[in-house]
């Protein structure tokens, strides 16, 4: 029961969606659209799990006074405030409440809604900063990993070195006086277009086969780890 019902549901919908791909008829297109909508609707309810889990973990930390429990308040309060602002005041467009405030109190919200203000000045800057940490990490990773330990490591190191050199103007000065087709920038382009592309294609084909095989195994109920145990 506990396994058979879910497995047959996965089987039925998997097969239906494969067949759907080959049918251009209006009924099939309509069905596809409704399926996409249904998947989004089911997805709404994930957030009940998400928020409950987050609150549980942080409440547990606060209760047991675990190290750093004070920060759990930061998470919980900022979650509550942001969700309130977004649900009451609107996400991308203002709700009627926000519109009323704008009209009667002459509020000026450049971004449209309170949520977008929070998004623009808190979430985006922090996200962009996390992203830019990569500039530092890519340097430390290069320093540590690019050592000529073995033949494969040498290949990795050399191509990275040459491509990096080819990306800066100073690099192209080195080969300035050489014939056109061994100019550094042309070499780099060739590496990117041929050996690099070749390996990428090989890897991608492998991934494709792996994905197709796993999808088939899921549909046929052979791959069932994601459902957990029981019968």
């Amino acid at each position, binding site marked *: 029961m506990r396994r058979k019902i879910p497995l047959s549901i996965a089987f039925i919908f998997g097969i239906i969606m494969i067949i759907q791909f080959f049918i251009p008829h209006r009924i099939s297109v309509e069905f596809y659209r409704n399926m996409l909508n249904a*998947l989004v609707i*089911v997805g709404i309810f994930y957030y009940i799990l998400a928020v409950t889990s987050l609150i549980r973990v942080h409440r547990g930390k606060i209760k047991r006074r675990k190290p750093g429990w004070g920060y759990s308040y930061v998470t919980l309060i900022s979650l509550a405030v942001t969700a309130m602002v977004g649900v009451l005041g609107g996400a991308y467009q203002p709700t009627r409440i926000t519109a009323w405030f704008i009209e009667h109190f002459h509020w000026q919200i450049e971004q449209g809604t309170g949520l977008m203000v929070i998004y623009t000045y808190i979430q985006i800057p922090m996200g962009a900063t996390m992203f830019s940490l990569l500039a530092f990490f890519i340097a430390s990773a290069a320093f540590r990993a690019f050592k000529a330990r073995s033949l494969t490591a040498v290949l990795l190191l050399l191509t990275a070195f040459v491509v990096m050199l080819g990306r800066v103007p100073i690099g192209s000065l080195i080969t300035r006086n050489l014939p056109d087709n061994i100019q550094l920038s042309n070499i780099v382009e060739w590496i990117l277009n041929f050996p690099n592309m070749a390996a990428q294609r090989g890897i991608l084909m492998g991934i494709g086969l792996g994905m197709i095989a796993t999808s088939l195994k899921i549909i046929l109920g052979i791959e069932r780890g*994601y459902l957990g145990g029981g019968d």
Partner: protein
Amino acid sequence: MKERKGLIFGSVILIVVFIIMFIKGEPSKNIMVWIAAILTLSIYSFLYKDNVFYKFAEHLFVGVSVGYSVSVVWQNAFIRRVFDPLFITRTYIVDGKFSLYLFLAIVIPTLLGMLMVSIFTKKHGWLIRIPIAFVVGSYAGMGIAPSFQAYIFEQTQSTLYVTLSISSFIMIVGVITTLVYFFFSKEHKGFLGKTAGVGIWFIMVAFGASFGYTVMARISLLIGRMNFLLHDWLGVIK
């Protein structure tokens, strides 16, 4: 110990540079820009070591981003796709007639989604497997054709554009040896092993190239943040 002193010294210099610029420049008058700048610096402080500022920023980031997702899901998914169609626009009434199909197309997924709440009960917790199986099964079915398209057809087709040249030869050898590296059911020795070995060379060249190619984009992200700090916030550069 000496090393640590050096690092502290370096960091202090960075902070002093910022303070000098703060005095020299025209700092922004927008309080939100200040918040954004302080949060930016808090996250950078993590590069030295974990500290109060980073912990605060990190926990705030998690809270705000979950709150944001909740708001967007509420407004743009729940209201638009469940609440409105069921109670306001009533999309299941076509030309004055009740359409069971369209009605169920909204109600069934809603009920399926509600099954997730079963996880909070001990006895019926397994019911959550039904929506999970529905999502995984449907996407697995939908995904097969695009996988063929993006991973098999497109890659094979672009490999096949061959000419009589060294570049083309390298392309073909590269694709085939890389594929051979992914053979699992035969031991990699003898000829197969040698071919797979060549495949690994190609893979390493590709990885080195992508690594080197990406550095520039990553640095420009840091430049973007510096621009924000020095221009938008401190106003020290015009």
